[in-house]
């Protein structure tokens, strides 16, 4: 067995880069240091694979050559008036760069899963900014750690041990020296190991964040409770926040997905910004997929905008709520879709998923999903970080290079290569 060290895991936004992988006969047989999510990916990447490109012809899938699949893809995209290219969070920056160029060429929309994940976070940042840092800053300095609407023990399992409460930093070395607070509507697994758990009424984060901000700025709250939390608790929390040496507020989809959306985020950002009058405080979004941050960055440096970019007028145009995938599909406006490394049929609300399934879909993905089942063209690809190299950005923007560990199945190439072929054909090279 051959061991490869310092492998970067390609599951969640933690992008842990200390994984040890054992290979035998071009197959991963052993994984060390990864959490259950990472282990699951490293040991199951070869299951449910699509092994041949296929095209749907009168309700039946026919296996075709890669060239034929690319031709069909190009045919669909060239004839579309308002195509959307979506996905991206589970593939490399290199693939997305090509995707943006394709979207620009065909005058379509390029969007990524941020749209239905931390899109509201980005909109909040665009409204008021954010005081943030890389995760090592939290590891080394933070004596107050808050998880709000986020359950890392289930979604980012090594977050605490690598970066926050259970990590060993230069200035803060032990768990005892840190206070951990969890705010959530349920007593989650993460809440269970916190020093303080604040159970909040659903859909009232905005109120609680505003009340905290008010208390931090020395206001006196006149109600007895806000969001189901007694005022004494709120004032105690505000005091902890002001008197810490370095506070870090990490938040997840509890804030972005509940009613209030980006306003919830603005309230959280404003609270942290105000706290910087009294002490050092940062806010970090818990990004889900391993390269959704890369997707935002690539899209942003090429177009100026981090997601939901519409090229139909020949230049980049951004208007979330109008150019975001959920809205474009709900309006029934797009007439073709290229989906890369994503499963929107599974993760969009059902009426949208149904509408999406009615237009020709091209899906590039390694394994079977509901989206591949309803697509017109399916092109299998390799896994970045396992079967091909690529660059990805951690949730805090730290860029890492993912390794190739094993060869992909015969005839399977990377997203990047497939997209290059599509681009080349579209350009008539």
């Amino acid at each position, binding site marked *: 067995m051959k061991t490869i060290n310092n492998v970067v895991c390609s599951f*969640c936004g933690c992008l842990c880069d200390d994984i040890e992988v054992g290979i035998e006969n071009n197959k991963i047989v052993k994984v060390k240091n990864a959490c*259950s*999510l990472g282990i*699951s990916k490293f040991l*199951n*990447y070869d*299951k*449910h694979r699509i092994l041949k490109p296929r095209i*749907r012809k009168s*309700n039946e899938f026919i296996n075709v050559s890669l060239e034929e699949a690319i031709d069909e893809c190009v045919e669909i995209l060239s004839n579309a008036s308002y195509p959307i290219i979506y996905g991206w969070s589970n593939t490399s920056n290199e693939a997305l760069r090509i995707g943006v160029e394709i979207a620009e060429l065909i005058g379509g929309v390029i969007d990524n899963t941020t*749209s*239905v994940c931390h*899109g*509201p976070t980005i909109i909040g940042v665009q409204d008021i900014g954010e005081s943030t840092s890389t995760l090592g800053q939290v590891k080394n300095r933070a004596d107050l750690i808050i998880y709000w609407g986020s*359950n890392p*023990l*289930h*979604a980012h*399992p090594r977050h605490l041990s690598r970066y926050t409460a259970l990590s060993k930093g230069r200035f803060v070395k032990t768990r005892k020296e840190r206070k951990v607070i969890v705010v959530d*509507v*349920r*007593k989650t*697994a993460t*809440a269970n190991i916190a020093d303080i758990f604040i*159970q909040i009424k*659903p859909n009232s984060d905005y109120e609680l964040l505003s009340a905290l901000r008010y208390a931090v700025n020395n206001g006196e709250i006149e109600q007895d409770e806000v969001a189901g939390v007694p005022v004494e608790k709120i004032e105690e929390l505000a005091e902890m926040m002001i008197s810490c040496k370095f506070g870090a507020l990490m938040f997840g989809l*509890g804030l*972005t*997905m*509940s*009613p209030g*959306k*980006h306003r919830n985020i603005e309230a959280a950002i404003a609270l942290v910004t105000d706290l910087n009058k009294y002490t050092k405080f940062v806010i970090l979004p818990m990004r*889900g997929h391993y390269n959704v941050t890369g997707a935002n960055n690539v899209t942003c440096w090429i177009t100026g905008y981090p997601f*939901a970019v519409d090229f139909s007028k020949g230049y980049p145009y951004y208007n979330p*709520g*109008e150019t*975001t995938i*959920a*809205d474009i*599909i*709900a309006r029934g406006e797009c007439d073709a879709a290229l989906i890369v490394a994503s499963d929107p*049929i*599974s*993760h*969009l*609300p*059902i*009426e*949208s*998923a*149904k509408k999406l*399934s*009615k237009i020709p879909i091209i899906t590039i993905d390694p*394994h*079977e*999903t*509901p989206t591949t*089942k*309803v697509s017109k063209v399916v092109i299998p690809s390799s896994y970045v970080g396992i079967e091909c190299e690529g660059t990805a950005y951690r949730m805090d923007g730290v860029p890492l290079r993912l390794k190739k560990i094993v060869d992909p199945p015969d005839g399977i190439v990377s997203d990047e290569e497939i997209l290059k072929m599509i681009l080349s054909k579209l350009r008539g090279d």
Partner: protein
Amino acid sequence: MIKVILITGRNLEQGTSKSIGKFSKEYMEKLAICELDPEDLKSLGIESGQNIKIKTNYGEVIVKAIESKQAPHKGIAFIPYSIWANLLLGSSTNSSGMPTFKGIEAIIDVAKEGKILDLNELLKEKFEMI
């Protein structure tokens, strides 16, 4: 019948089983479920493991009720991300780009005889071409 606030979200089972494969038996067992607070199970008069029907303004689905290990959260139902969860969600984003995946009002009924559709059956029922 009970009224709840519905939360859809991530959990470990959802993360690990999607790597195993969305059409695997494991995926359906782990994801076509709804986590309820023990008191809510009592109100419904059922045990963990029995089928329930969840209904919102946007749709309905039959899944298996499970006693939550992340309680207390009386009045809140948790379904992991999946097509089963999304059958209950509306498409409107209120111009934010983001549909509402958490904090939706729902009604839960016992559905002892109800059948949980597997992914292939679900796709057949909801999407014309399969």
